């Protein structure tokens, strides 16, 4: 059986863990080790030790709160046991009703971002204005500068919220692009086959 929470700090790491715990409670976005170290006015390595202690304390199944590594930082979330209760209390407007067009656009921005609407439209073959506007409104993508040259189009990237909603430690946690989709060589051969069949 797991031991009960031990919250009374006696050594310096325990005291730092309490500070880090407090910082994570008041933050609404994931905090990186560097941000925690700066706020706690302590050494990043010691903060990582404190985080390891907290991750053990707030592991899934030990408390109603879980400390997770997500979107390039650390953040608290509710335990999965409490998901039904949370669902009765709140709605999830961010990911609710995402259309196929929005999901494809999101995938393009996640893999190829920062990228512009013309680039997205070029890949999908249809205008992406509505899908992009919907994703910006939900906070899943955000503007990230403009393309070079005169009247350069606005470019977009995914946000930390995207990584948080999809439970990703970072964009590197996405499947490798080479593992997805068909082989271009195979598609080319099929296209040539169709073309020759039409010509004959």
């Amino acid at each position, binding site marked *: 059986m797991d031991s009960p929470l031990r919250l009374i700090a006696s050594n310096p790491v325990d005291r730092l863990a309490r500070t880090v715990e407090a910082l994570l409670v*008041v933050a609404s976005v994931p905090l990186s080790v560097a941000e925690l170290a700066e706020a706690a006015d302590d050494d990043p390595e010691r903060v990582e030790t404190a985080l390891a202690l907290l991750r053990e304390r707030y592991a899934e199944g030990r408390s109603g709160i879980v400390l997770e590594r997500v979107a390039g930082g650390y953040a608290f979330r509710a335990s999965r046991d409490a998901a039904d209760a949370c669902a009765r209390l709140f709605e999830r407007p961010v990911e609710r009703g995402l259309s196929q067009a929005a999901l494809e656009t999101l995938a393009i921005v996640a893999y190829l971002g920062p990228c512009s609407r013309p680039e997205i439209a070029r890949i999908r073959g249809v205008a992406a204005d509505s899908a992009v506007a919907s994703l910006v409104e939900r906070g899943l993508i955000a503007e990230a500068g403009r393309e070079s040259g005169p009247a350069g189009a606005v470019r977009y990237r995914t946000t930390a919220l995207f990584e948080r909603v999809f439970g990703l430690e970072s964009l590197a946690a996405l499947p490798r692009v080479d593992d997805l989709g068909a082989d271009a060589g195979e*598609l080319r051969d099929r296209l040539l086959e169709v073309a020759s069949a039409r010509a004959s």
Partner: protein
Amino acid sequence: MHPTPVRELELDLDAFEGPFDLLLTLLLKEAIEPREVDVAGIVLAFVERLVERDEVDLEGCGEFLVLISALLELKARSLFPDETAELDALEPEEAAEELARRLAEYRRMKEAAAWLVQRLASEHDRWFRLGPAPLAPRAERRLAAQDASALAVALRGLAVPPPNVSLSHMALRFPPVSQFLERFRSLLARRRRFDFDAEVGGFSRVEQAVAFLALLELRKSGEIALSQAVPFAPIRVSRADDERILTWTARSA
């Protein structure tokens, strides 16, 4: 009023200096890149010219709109190259290669979207706080240096009392229809027929409209007969009895 010589509009842009007409010629000859032309600058120059003239020249504005729209289209085309044309310029095998590359790219993104859907389903029971925390640091509002006198001028512009709204249309007096009913009845008692246009010629438009309503009313009750040789010709008004007798006589003959 002399039309604004739009084509001779003098421009002083980064990429070009001279009359608008010459700029268009150079653009059509592809001597200037459309993407380098500052369209907003041209619009500004035209508006300044209009303000200088202090009169609205609709013909000139129309011509300018047509020309500036054509210029915008040229610029848009140069900014977004035609992909179909790109493919057309390729050899069949190269085109197939390029098309296959694009299809493969799209298919990968489609599968990535499917992966995101699965991921969303597996992560649906992860709940976390969204939005600013109660103690989130307040964003500092950075405003550019403001000129108080400019603000005062802007406010003064807003404080001007609105122009008086004309209520003249509410003062229109409509004479009663009955007045014209009586007038036409007494006329027909004295004369067998009369010319409506001649009878109401001296009245105001409102009075003429009411008189016409009276005419329709008399026709509806069967007291009069109306005739008009051709559309918009004078309306001839006669007693209904006389008209019936005339018709009967014509038929008997």
